[in-house]
């Protein structure tokens, strides 16, 4: 018995010892890492001269909570150090790790807010954030100027106060993106090349190309060719649900079509607007061109298929398959990358895929009731919106991240571009997760440079491959957005997808039920034999009839009307 006790004890001892050894090894590295970062040197003199133009702020700590949308900065991150040295602001950041609903739930219940927080309707409803309009008027000239045009749109539909500073959607100068990141029917460049760069406007033309190409090349790189794929995984549902509204010539309003003249929303799910598209997919499936597991696969599987270069086309948003695109490029399979086309049901319909980015109040920062000195915080955000800081955050540091050409335009060397791909480097030298949430200047700076490297025309052209140049020349275009009609000014109430349906309301429940029905019946309709299509469709329509869709439509229409009234009054 004594022996056994000793054994147990020695086991425990070994356990602790092993932990210690492993940990010691790691922690030594840790110390070295930490040691190499210059200890807190007095910022005094150096910072004073560095920021003569900026409003000097006393040493001040701002706590903030966001979901990190980029590499998490290291403790010795250069940008954070500059912010501290030049503005006196120490940022104490907390990033979302688990479920946002849970975290916000306890945060609100306990009233334990940081100073700045990511936008969420739950927080507005809980009175967790303070009105910003007076703060901006009195302390923040940059913000005032920036949001001047859209001031009314920032106001909360319920009480007319401004609570959130949206991070995107305010443009300086012309709206001229080079890359297209939105929804479209994508098709491999190789197919276009094979067919002499034909014009594609309708589903028939699009699927004809795919059909012929698949017949000619049943295998690509030794694997069976997949004609058309898409995705309906978790929240990434647009691949299945959104195509009909675009085919009908409407912009992305989420689950509804909005008549631009009357500003009234109608559903298109389970209607004759949607039916021809799914019927077409069912035909495609009968020809063996549809990826049968499109709506049963997960995101990684989808990306893997696209990256293998054997998927000829899909309906998706470009940013959603960015990883697959990058992978194809890195494999050198440039002709397998995709071009998006704005297909419509009827050639006389003008396509409306490309839209002017709307203001999205569901994103960005607000200041909470717990902030002790909101003035200092708004001043900090205001400073970050200055051209100097915008360039620092978006372009980086001159000489390190970009160079200035003779014409005053910024550019990057190939080495600089490669550097930007390194996550560990970004952790030390970029502040993407902070940058993602701050209000930003979009479009062009007064000096003619684009907001960031991604939109600099020269940078864009420098990154084009041979097949891209050939393709663009053949179509007579300069950029990828030229494939799409120039969008008109946004309808005042646009877009309907960011309408707050109100937590737990019948409208929100109906929305979820509609989604469930789409997920269940649409794949079934597509994968059924063509002669069964009508039957499945009828059942789908019948089930949809049981959902309280009116509650959903009422809420959407009420808000559309409110927007039209409130946002045009000035």
């Amino acid at each position: 018995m004594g022996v056994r006790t000793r054994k147990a004890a020695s086991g425990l001892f070994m356990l602790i010892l092993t932990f210690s050894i492993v940990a010691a090894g790691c922690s030594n590295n840790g110390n070295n890492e930490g040691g190499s970062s210059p200890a807190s040197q007095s910022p005094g003199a150096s910072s004073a001269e560095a920021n003569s133009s900026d409003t000097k702020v006393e040493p001040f700590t701002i706590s903030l909570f966001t979901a990190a949308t980029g590499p998490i900065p290291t403790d010795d991150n250069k940008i954070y150090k500059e912010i501290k040295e030049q503005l006196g602001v120490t940022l104490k950041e907390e990033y979302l790790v688990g479920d946002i609903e849970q975290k916000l739930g306890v945060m609100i219940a306990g009233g334990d807010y940081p100073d700045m927080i990511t936008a969420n309707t739950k927080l507005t409803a809980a009175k967790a954030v303070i009105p910003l309009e007076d703060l901006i008027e009195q302390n923040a000239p940059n913000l005032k100027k920036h949001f001047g045009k859209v001031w009314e749109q920032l106001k909360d539909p319920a009480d007319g106060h401004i609570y959130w500073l949206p991070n995107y959607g305010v443009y300086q100068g012309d709206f001229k993106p080079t890359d297209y990141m939105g929804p479209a029917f994508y098709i491999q460049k190789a197919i276009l090349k094979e067919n002499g760069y034909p014009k594609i406007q309708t589903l028939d033309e699009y699927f004809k190309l795919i059909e012929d190409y698949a017949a000619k090349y049943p295998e690509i790189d030794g694997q069976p060719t997949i004609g058309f794929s898409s995705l309906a995984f978790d929240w990434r549902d647009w691949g299945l649900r959104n195509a009909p509204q675009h085919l009908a010539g409407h912009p992305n309003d989420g689950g509804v079509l909005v008549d631009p003249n009357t500003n009234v929303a109608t559903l298109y799910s389970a209607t004759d607007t949607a039916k021809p598209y799914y019927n077409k997919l069912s035909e495609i499936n009968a020809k063996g061109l549809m990826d049968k597991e499109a709506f049963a696969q997960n995101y990684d599987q989808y990306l893997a298929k696209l990256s293998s270069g054997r998927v000829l086309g899909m309906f998706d948003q470009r940013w959603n398959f960015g990883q697959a695109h990058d992978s194809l490029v890195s494999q050198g399979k440039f002709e397998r990358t995709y071009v998006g086309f704005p297909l419509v049901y009827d050639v006389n319909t003008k396509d409306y895929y490309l839209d002017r980015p709307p203001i999205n109040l569901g994103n960005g920062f607000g200041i909470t009731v717990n902030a002790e000195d909101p003035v200092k915080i708004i001043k900090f955000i205001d400073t970050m919106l200055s051209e100097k800081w915008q360039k620092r955050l978006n372009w980086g540091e001159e000489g390190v991240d970009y160079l200035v050409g003779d014409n005053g335009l910024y550019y990057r060397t190939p080495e600089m571009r490669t550097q930007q791909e390194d996550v560990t480097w970004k952790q030390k030298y970029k502040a993407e997760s902070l940058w993602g949430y701050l209000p930003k200047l979009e479009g062009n700076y007064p000096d003619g440079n684009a907001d960031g490297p991604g939109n600099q025309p020269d940078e864009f052209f420098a990154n084009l491959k041979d097949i891209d140049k050939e393709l663009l020349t053949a179509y007579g275009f300069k950029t990828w957005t030229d494939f799409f009609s120039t969008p008109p000014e946004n309808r005042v109430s646009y877009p309907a997808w960011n309408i707050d349906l109100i937590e737990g309301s019948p409208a929100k429940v109906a929305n979820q039920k509609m989604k469930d029905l789409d997920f269940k019946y649409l794949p079934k309709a597509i994968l059924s034999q063509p002669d069964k299509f009508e039957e499945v469709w009828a059942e789908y329509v019948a089930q949809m009839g049981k959902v309280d869709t009116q509650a959903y439509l009422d809420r959407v229409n009420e808000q559309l009307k409110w927007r039209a009234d409130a946002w045009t009054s000035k």
Partner: protein
Amino acid sequence: MQTTIRKFKTEPFLFHTLNFLFMIFVAIVTLYPFLNTLAISFNSGLDTTRGGIYVWPREWTLKNYEAVFASGKVYHAFWVSVARTVIGTVVSVFLTAMLAYTISRKEYMFRKPVTLIFILTMYFSAGLIPSYFLIKDLNLLNTFLVYILFPGAGAGLISAFNMLVVRTYIHTLPESLNESAKIDGASDFRVFFSIILPMCTPVIATISLFTAVGQWNTWFDTFIFASSRQELSTLQYELMRLLSSSVNSNANPSLSSTAAKDTATMITPLSIRAAITMVAFVPILVVYPFLQRHFVSGLQLGSVKE
């Protein structure tokens, strides 16, 4: 004797061969997901996107691991995890075993109510918000103690499940031990410490493993109760944070469309998840054999003679 030996000779051989082959099969099947994850963790993220990685990396890289260790925050977090695992396990296993002993004693007058009180905790959950208020009211928010006390994934002070496992084990021990000790006039404390506890080594090893793994793997309590103090951050929490930042930056339309679109992502959520899994797992792999011998050695250890 002679005949019986001959009779059983072919049977054990056949059995052992089949058993051996079956075990090899089990090993291959269960090893695969692990090797696959290992391979992905050493493979370039962008290349992994193509799929087709099985048990060997195609494009070797250490980038995924570099990304995990670059922030430098994981080193301190590792120590916090070690501390909470060691302290939490020792305290919880000891208290659970002691409690199990009391309810294993048939004559204990509060045996039934005490057992019931603990059993029920396995079948209800009060919900997050009330628990949060409790922790807040006890001033345990952002303290190390919350890791030891909160009865969440890490089990808290007592795990009812483990308690029942130990109690059942004690029941299988010969009753005579208990009685003889009692006749000697030993107190309950002494019976527990010097007779029951030493004989429970296999089951103690088992629940130690369960508790330690629970403590080591949980990140939820840090997320809810201690996320605003960096010095209390645990390894799993840091890893989860890295992962969600990687997932988010690949899932945020606005970010992907402007800020990050000119830079390809060399590290994908898939690859970082693989690296994270390995980093979190290595300590368990190292420690496990020390516990394992207590419950796999079978007969030698189960001996209750003497």
